[in-house]
């Protein structure tokens, strides 16, 4: 009996071990399957709309930026870091996304501070006008590419629309499980990698469509900004102040019936800047100084800038950053300069942009 018992004991222990191993393997395989499925099913944004690829590209850049721009499409299509670097040697990054809401900007800034501490933050004034999520797609375009963190969850929580779950921002497969019906070659090709579509957050648009509309924008009953926007504007301003960061507000050049910038809003923003000791710049007001030409500088009739308009705005604002905020030229490297890795990244970025701009110019010339 004893000897039999002694023989059985190790057998029992072996069974238990096998079960544990089997359970662990089972769980691992299941997790791997879910991971693979998720990698396959989430949108890659490697073709239209590219806008959804912008946010994740920030994590690939060397975090040595003196200026971070926070804003929506107005910003990521009119602020070109390659131009600002080439002309002034100021390293900037545009943390932009489609219809970025002001709380997204706030959480992007908090997240940015985990990686780096810029000297200045430039905020797009137009975000003040939208105090609620208009389309869930915009939240996805903004947050899909954001790394999972408490900031992402906080931003997602603010933007949840009816029927959405916070879990779907942690496990995007919950949101995209039905995409299997529309999977294409891109989904397989980019399961584990992405191409770079932006120039430090700048999305280059090459078309030209003149602004010809004379239609006024719809009237508003109440021109005051939503309370939540005012609250988050204060939060961003105070966050900058507490971290010794210069907070700058900029209104991009757009002013159309579709994306209007009302006089009342302009007045409010100017008053806010004065009252709180921050600088406010309007690319609408400064159009002649910038040299904005709406027959050539937009790709969609004046709603957004093409690369020609973006180059002008970037030269104008780069000079402001240099002259009014004393931001130094960091191209030299060495003491006070950027690291070799960052300099190499900027060299590659400016080369890539120069080639793309030359190609766009050639295409425009050929088109007549």
């Amino acid at each position, binding site marked *: 009996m004893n000897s039999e018992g002694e023989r059985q004991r190790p057998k029992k222990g072996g069974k238990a071990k096998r079960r544990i191993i089997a359970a662990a393997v089972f769980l691992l395989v299941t997790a791997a399957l879910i991971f693979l499925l998720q990698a396959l099913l989430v949108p890659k944004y490697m073709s239209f709309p590219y806008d959804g690829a912008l946010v994740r590209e920030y994590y690939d850049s060397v975090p040595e930026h003196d200026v971070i721009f926070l804003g929506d*499409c107005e910003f990521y299509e009119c602020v070109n870091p390659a131009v600002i670097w080439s002309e002034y040697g100021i390293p900037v990054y545009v943390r932009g996304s489609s219809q970025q809401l002001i709380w997204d900007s706030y959480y992007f800034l908090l997240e940015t501070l985990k990686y780096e501490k810029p000297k200045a933050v430039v905020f797009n004034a137009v975000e003040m006008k939208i105090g609620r999520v208009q389309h869930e797609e915009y939240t996805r375009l903004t947050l899909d590419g954001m790394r999972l963190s408490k900031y992402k969850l906080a931003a997602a929580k603010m933007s949840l629309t009816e029927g959405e779950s916070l879990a779907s921002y942690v496990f995007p497969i919950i949101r995209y499980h039905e995409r299997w019906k529309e999977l294409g070659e891109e989904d397989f090709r980019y399961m584990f990698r992405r191409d770079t579509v932006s120039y430090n957050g700048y999305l280059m648009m090459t078309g030209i469509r003149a602004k010809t509309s004379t239609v006024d924008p719809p009237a508003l009953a109440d021109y005051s900004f939503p309370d939540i926007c005012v609250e988050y504007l204060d939060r961003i301003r105070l966050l900058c102040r507490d971290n010794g960061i210069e907070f700058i507000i900029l209104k991009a050049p757009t002013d159309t019936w579709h994306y209007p910038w009302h006089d009342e809003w302009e007045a409010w923003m100017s008053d806010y800047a004065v009252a709180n000791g921050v600088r406010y710049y309007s690319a609408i007001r400064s159009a002649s100084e910038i040299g904005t030409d709406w027959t050539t500088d937009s790709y969609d009739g004046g709603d957004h800038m093409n690369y020609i308009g973006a180059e002008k705005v970037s030269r104008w604002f780069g000079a402001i950053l240099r002259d009014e905020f004393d931001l130094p030229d960091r191209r030299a490297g060495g003491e006070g300069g950027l690291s070799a890795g960052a300099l190499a990244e900027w060299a590659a970025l400016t080369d890539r942009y120069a080639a793309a701009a030359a190609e766009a110019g050639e295409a425009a010339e050929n088109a007549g």
Partner: protein
Amino acid sequence: MSSSKIKNSIFWKAAALLTAAIVCLVPVLASCGGGGGEIVLTDDSGDETDDVSGGVFSFKIASGASVAPNDNLATFIAAAGQPVSYEESNSCAYIGLDKVYVYSGYTIYTYPVNGVDYLLQLKFTDDSVSTPEGISIGCTEEEVVSTYGRGFTKIGDSIVYYRGATSLQFTLKSGVVNAVSYSAVE
């Protein structure tokens, strides 16, 4: 059945149950996601409202066709005929196409939901048109109030009446109406 066999059987049953649970997990979780992979517009800037007399503010043209904010515009646009001009503009990332129709005397702005255009705002551009109740640009504040009553909200230079998910706004300058607009209310 020996106890070890029973235990073995329970283990595999549990494993099978766990497998089934996980297989079911994704669709169950997915059902919490509030939608599938197809991007569905969640714009709720107004209820889809029929042009119910008394329930909403509506505008009427000479042919008798009428339209209210949040109405599907197809019928009205067909009745209103060729606009003086028409423009459309894509939103960021091409999520939605907003349109504007300019007619003699008024301009119409639309918002899209699932490819259908709804009336966001109808704005008078001159005094050639009037509300069905007879108010046009150039009328006095007293005429507006005697027509629509005192149940308005004063916002800046405007007096605004609300009815259902619609509003009717009169902007005044020196006591005279200089703008009129019907709008969808969020």
